[in-house]
């Protein structure tokens, strides 16, 4: 999760972003205080969490929720809030 930040003479001028989709390279996961923990046993794959996640951080593989993208999840807790089966719990980050 370590970012290598460029110096002033390596960056595009004026703060412009020259490629699309580069928010992937910005690890907003470092902002988190609580992290979502997914319990696959309780999960019914209703995708409520996926629909509500503001950071596109719910990972779905082969039609099933498999976990969270913790590089980008800011720990807002919306997923845990909307889960009808309480399959997501928020746990304090240990750093």
């Amino acid at each position: 999760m370590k970012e290598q930040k460029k110096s002033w003479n390596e960056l595009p001028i004026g703060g412009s972003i020259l490629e699309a989709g580069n928010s992937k390279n910005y690890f907003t996961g470092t902002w988190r205080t609580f992290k979502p923990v997914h319990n696959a046993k309780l999960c019914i794959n209703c995708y409520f969490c996926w629909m509500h996640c503001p950071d596109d951080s719910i990972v779905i593989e082969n039609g099933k929720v498999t976990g969270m993208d913790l590089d980008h999840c800011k720990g807002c807790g919306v997923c845990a809030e909307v889960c009808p089966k309480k399959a997501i719990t928020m746990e304090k980050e240990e750093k």
Partner: protein
Amino acid sequence: MSSGRFIAVDGADTAAFAMKQIDPDVVAAYPITPQTEIVMKFSEYVANGEVKTRYVTVESEHSAMSACVAAAAAGARAMTATAANGLALMWEILYIAASYRLPIIMGVANRALSGPINIHGDHSDAMGARDSGWVQLYSENNQEVYDNYIMALKIAEHKDVMLPVMVNQDGFITSHSVENVEPLTDEQVRDYIGKKPAHFKGLLTYGKPVTIGPLDLQDYYFEHKMQQHTAMQKVLPVIKEVQEDYFKKFNRKYEIIEKYKADDAEMVIVGMNSVMGTVKDLVDELREKGVKIGAIKPRVFRPFPKNEIADILKNFKAVAILDRADSFGSFAPLYAETLAAMYKFEKRPYIRSYIHGLGGRDTTMELLGTVANDLIKMKDSGEGHLSEAYLGVR
């Protein structure tokens, strides 16, 4: 070569004429005295089909500058003009134009900021914008207005610069005074400014999406300010290069700082814009009487030519700095920066600050004569050294 053709125009029409020859892609402007005539005349050119410019009428200067920012960000050559309170209303967008590195050209018919409300010429508008990141050129007369406009584009769009440029002329005193101006031909201007350089691309490059103006917090903002600082550091060499090239092509000599009869002078008067015409007349008059006096006129205030001005001034005995703006509670702008620039020398001339002509009051030969008398006294005795005078105030 020059065109050899003269036109009689005032400073505002000169600016509009230069804009016509530049034929920018976009002009967005809002009228304000004494700038009105610039955009009024230019809109005539648009209406007559003499330019291809898309003219955007807006409801305020804030929007005028915003439209220019958007146009330049999209890759268009964008120009505008304003004065005084109009410039003040643009304030936040001035910083945005500079920090996004958009080479917008703006004419300013310098006018006193309210209040109390006043429509006449002083530099309180431009001086307030001196830290906005814009290059500031100053023009003594209509010819200089014209040539500054043409050169401004080359400076702004230079690959090492990519910064907006403000071309200043004194409101009314210059903007509404008719003088002979020798413009280049349309063809000369077209060839000289050429097409938009390849590095000035803008947003609308298909297949290559770009984001301009994203959030820029603690981890990047400082680096982008460093880029602005570095670009500004490169402006003076670029101006020098542009001026030399202009001289070669059109036989018109401009320097970052003009020296007038200063080579053997003991005393000089330093100032910017129209007052320097009067100062030169005074110098001529006093030279007839054997007084060793000269004039020094910076044409560029941002970036401040600190080394150039210090190296010129260091050998004089007495220096008067004329500022057509005050900085309440501190030193006047040109004075303050000149003092700071001189600090590197152990031996410095006697120097005195004169604030003059606020709200467009005439700075007459008679008033400037008192400055010369002060200098004559100061050069031997040091009397008045580092003091600040308000020229002609009751």
